[in-house]
């Protein structure tokens, strides 16, 4: 990469032998620094170190981070990615890194999606270049975080929800987060933390965005062991969805989502959620 003040942080838990994102990053042409962010309650820390090297595995104190966050429930359950995501800001500072992207550990592809028109062909071959391109925009704009789109955003092709539901005034930001130590923010809630965060902070003027040109693809949600799977199976998506409703009841509801097996999901009315971005010419 051209920008040397950057690193990839892969957050992971209990999957030292199945960090799919690592292989995907290599396949898609990323050649720079990767750190594996693992909590001190993970019983497989040594295996992470063995697989990826002591210097590349960063351990954080999960309880200490959790104590600083509104978890949105009283379950006293630290099965969440919230704390790892929040730890990344402090970790980046300690590593003297200004810009970083936080990735989950289960990505199987980075694929082109919108290049003038909707497309599904072609996985990204040079992520080094794309991270630089995304970083350039991130640095020059005032976003607190920007993300790649997700595979699910494109269900239904050109009529997909990404276009018709939310993106025209949407500032969602999920899963992959380009961040900076100079623009810190805090993820909130044990469940649905990415949604809670871009809704609650977005409503106060923090800027988040999903860039639709490239979409990441993941292994099937709730279909593999480790990570958040156990928490989702325990609570279903009821608690997950309602966490965001509790945090922003004026514009978030729940609705049913899915084709074969329906499940509760949050539904955000964007025009009632986030202040809009307007040109400077309107300012007197």
């Amino acid at each position: 990469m051209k920008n040397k003040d950057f690193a990839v942080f892969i957050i992971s838990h209990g999957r030292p032998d199945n960090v799919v994102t690592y292989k995907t990053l290599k396949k898609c042409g990323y050649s720079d620094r990767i750190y594996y962010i693992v909590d001190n309650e993970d019983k497989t820390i040594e295996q992470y170190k063995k697989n990826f090297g002591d210097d590349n595995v960063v351990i954080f104190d999960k309880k200490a981070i959790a104590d600083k966050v509104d978890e949105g429930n009283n379950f006293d359950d630290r099965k969440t990615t919230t704390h790892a995501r929040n730890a990344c800001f402090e970790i980046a500072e300690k590593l003297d890194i200004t810009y970083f992207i936080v990735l989950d550990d289960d990505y199987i592809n980075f694929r082109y999606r919108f290049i003038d028109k909707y497309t599904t062909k072609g996985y990204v071959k040079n992520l080094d270049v794309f991270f630089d391109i995304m970083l350039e925009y991130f640095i020059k704009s005032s976003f607190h975080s920007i993300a790649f789109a997700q595979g699910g955003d494109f269900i239904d092709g050109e009529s997909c929800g990404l276009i018709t539901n939310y993106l025209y005034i949407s500032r969602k930001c999920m899963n992959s987060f380009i961040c900076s130590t100079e623009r810190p923010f805090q993820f909130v809630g044990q469940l649905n933390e990415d949604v809670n965060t871009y809704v609650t902070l977005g409503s106060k003027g923090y800027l988040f965005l999903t860039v639709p040109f490239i979409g990441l693809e993941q292994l099937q949600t709730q279909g593999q062991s480790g990570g958040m799977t156990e928490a989702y199976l325990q609570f279903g998506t009821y608690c997950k969805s309602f966490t965001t409703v509790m945090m922003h009841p004026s514009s978030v509801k729940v609705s049913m989502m899915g084709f074969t097996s329906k499940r509760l999901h949050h539904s955000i009315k964007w025009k009632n959620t986030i202040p809009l971005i307007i040109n400077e010419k309107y300012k007197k």
Partner: protein
Amino acid sequence: MKQQNMFSKKEVSEDKEEKYSLKIEAPIYEPKNKKPFILELYDKSKSSILINQINGSNISSEEKEFLIEAAKRHTVFNYEKIADYYAHASKEVQEFMEQSALVIIDFEKAIQGGYVRLCENIKQQYLEEYQDEE
């Protein structure tokens, strides 16, 4: 409802009835020429009901104060109307609206202009990788 969007030059209706050309544009809102009435900017229907019920109860004044503040979380703000209003508001009101993050100002087109460059750069990279397959 006039609304610039990332994919279309056409207006986007809330009912999603219109077709999209997939022309990618920055997520910038273009305020309308008409200044909305101030009461159009927010909807207190639910919060008012809650507040009236709280005020009519026999709970302590401290509890009332807390619950009334909490009830205001149900006030619905219409940020499109708010942006429309901002464009026609006085300088003083605009400054209060900015301080309260009711609109975001895109200074020097950092968001809009940068987005166009981002789009072009990604397209260029895509063509370099897949030109033979176009």
